[in-house]
């Protein structure tokens, strides 16, 4: 509860949380505000925002409602951000925990694999995965998760290495606990706070990665995502710039919100770092 109190003491963290809630509310209310398919034709192509009260944010180059796509796009961004982050953190924590706890040859093997992933640029690897497995929403989400785990793995490993020889872990060992009980029950809860904070970075990057894929028209074309909209707007960028700019702002706000929440969590969970 101390952590919650510290969190709400920081204005930036509260602003981030409010922005994130706005995005969540958009995602939740999309079906209710825009019951029609967001990818269906809504009017003339390329209507400017605020010129037609029925289509508040105008239409894109094929005449689809931009506002509806923004609301539905929030769902896709949150979905990809959340699920991909969960995948990355689970893989990363497992690999980092075993490598850090056991050390020796287990650590060597796992860390060489991690480094192999780290030496490839994330985005290139992502392109390869999508090129091989196709670009449905599921494969894109899993692919984003799979390219994002090395950093949380290294972070978890470092935490485990510093915690594994603490006296309370040794005490657990003298009580007769099994390795798995020590890893999950004793060390992991103490190693998690920095990993949770890092998850916000992973989430922001995951949202950006999906948008970048969509911009290259490699993401799932059958869903309304912000990236897809930016990709469409590319063709009319010099005149009808708003087609790309509006989803761009949405991405900016979401990533900013996630980062602010992450920073707030960091200060709340590691209070000693804050009073510098």
């Amino acid at each position, binding site marked *: 509860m101390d952590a919650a109190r510290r969190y709400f003491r920081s204005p930036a963290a509260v602003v981030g949380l409010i922005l994130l809630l706005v995005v969540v509310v958009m995602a939740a209310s999309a079906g209710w505000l825009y019951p029609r398919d967001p990818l269906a034709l809504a009017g003339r192509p390329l209507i400017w925002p605020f010129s037609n009260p029925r289509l508040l944010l105008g239409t894109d180059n094929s005449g689809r409602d931009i506002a509806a796509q923004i609301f539905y796009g929030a769902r896709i961004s949150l979905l990809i951000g959340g699920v991909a982050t969960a995948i990355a953190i689970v893989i990363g924590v497992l690999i980092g925990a075993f490598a850090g706890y056991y050390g020796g040859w287990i650590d060597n093997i796992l860390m060489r694999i991690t480094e192999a992933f780290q030496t490839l640029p994330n985005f290139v690897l992502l392109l390869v995965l999508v090129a091989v497995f196709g670009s449905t929403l599921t494969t894109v989400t899993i692919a984003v998760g799979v390219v994002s785990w090395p950093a949380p793995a290294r972070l978890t490993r470092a935490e485990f290495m510093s915690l594994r020889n603490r006296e309370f872990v040794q005490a657990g060992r003298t*009580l007769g606990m099994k390795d798995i009980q020590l890893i999950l029950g004793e060390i992991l809860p103490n190693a998690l706070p920095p990993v949770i904070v890092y998850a916000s970075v992973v989430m922001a990057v995951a949202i950006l990665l999906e948008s970048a894929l969509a911009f290259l028209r490699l993401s799932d074309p059958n869903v309304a995502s912000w990236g897809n909209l930016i990709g469409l707007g590319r063709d009319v960028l010099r005149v009808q710039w708003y087609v790309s700019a509006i989803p761009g702002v949405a991405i900016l706000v979401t990533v900013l919100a996630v980062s602010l929440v992450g920073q707030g969590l960091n200060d709340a969970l590691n209070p000693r770092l804050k009073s510098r």
Partner: protein
Amino acid sequence: MSELPNAILTLDRLSVKLPAGADRSHALAGVSLSVAANEILCVVGESGSGKSIMANAIMQLLPRDVSIDGGRVMFEGRDLASATTAEMRQVRGAGIAMIFQEPMTALNPLRTIGDQIGEMFSIHSDLSKAAIRDKVLALLEDVRIPDPKVAARAYPHELSGGQRQRAMIAMALALDPRVLIADEPTTALDVTTQAQILKLIRELQIRKKTAVLFITHDFGVVAEIADRVAVMQHGSVVEQGDVSAVLNDPQHPYTRQLIAAVPPLTAPAPRKLSDDIILTIDEVSKTYRTGGFLGRGARVTHAVKAVSLKLPRGATLGIVGESGSGKSTLARCIVRLIDPDAGSIVLEGKDWAKMTRENVRRETQHIQMVFQDPFASLNPRRKAGDLVAQGPIVHGTPRAKAIADAKELFALVGLDPSAIDRFPHEFSGGQRQRIGLARALALRPDVLVADEAVSALDVSVQAQVLKMLDELRERLGLSIVFITHDLRVAAQICDLVAVMKDGEVVEHGLAGDVFGDPQHPYTKALLASIPGGDFARSHASVSA
């Protein structure tokens, strides 16, 4: 109170305010004391008494949210409490110098010792480089560092703890300050090194006629070095006066309580020991190899060399030694946190040294360990009751019964049974150590290995925990292996004592014999180094 006529540094009703939400409103509440030239004033108190805050308040080195809110710090006719940052820079180092508890963290690890001492001169004077070099060597000679030329070129990690503290003292004395503040300067050192450093501080103080404000928690150190003493409790000075007066005729009840808690240096009358040997340690060795490629340049450390000891049922075997003597490695070999290289450790007919890890895990209820650090040894994210119940649950006790047993154990070790739902950080150091003890006892062990179990505690708490340990041994029929660096603690509780040095047992026998009539020169040196040894002996005869 004593307004000294020749006082150099005088604190006049000094108050220091703590931030809201601390356990009390003021770290210091109207502290008045003064130090004169050519004397050592010891400020003694337990943790939390405000003695270190006082040192930092004098130097204006308080943390940001802690501030002086009343009183004066008079030094050479100036009030330091209201001095500007620039004025303080002139005073620090040149007027008042300070040495700290942990020389490793107080020295910059990336610069040589000579550089860091020389910096004092380059900041406060305009001497030439060659002159500074000569001064540095002279200072290092003053503090008796062996081979000053080599030491000046060494980095902090290349020196031993005692040598680092000598270098710190050299740095503090570089500009001939009129006042030296020493904040627990020997607490992190081994007892023989401590004795040398105390002697050095005394000699330098007499030669340079410095006023020394010496902060310590140890009445032994007070007896060894102080001219006058001030006793602090909860941010106030409760008693001050000449050292002999305070030590031999304490007036305030708190002072009396502290002095009574100082462990006497004589072993209690020997008890009859059982002939039944419960634990036999035979020729146990542990060697560490570090570094080196294909065996070249590898460093081999013999942490434990062929140690053989016997623990009779129901007895307490003390293993004493300085840091690096291998006593903690031996303790960890006994509970198999470390695998010994050779030898046998026989408990109830089973050789623990050769058991598989899986068997050790199953048999672990027979032998349990209490750890040194009451803060690091409890998982901060588990409730106290869970911590105690964990062991039995691992070995198959149903959770509800284990928690009920934990409540009983809480009562057994003198804690409130209703506190099982609290987290470790809500307990004090002494209470945490009791939780650690309850956790070890929860498995009903035959042998308890206590590794420096009271070293992190204040003397009065230490005395309580030791007394409780003794009672529990009687009541539960425990046999105890007690590891400590503090001979005074060992003298209080142990039936048998083994003295370790460089991985070997140099002397062992009944506690009374080892302390009363030491045979090995190292044991003699250890006993001679105990601060305030004469006081401890006379104190024992008074309280006996």
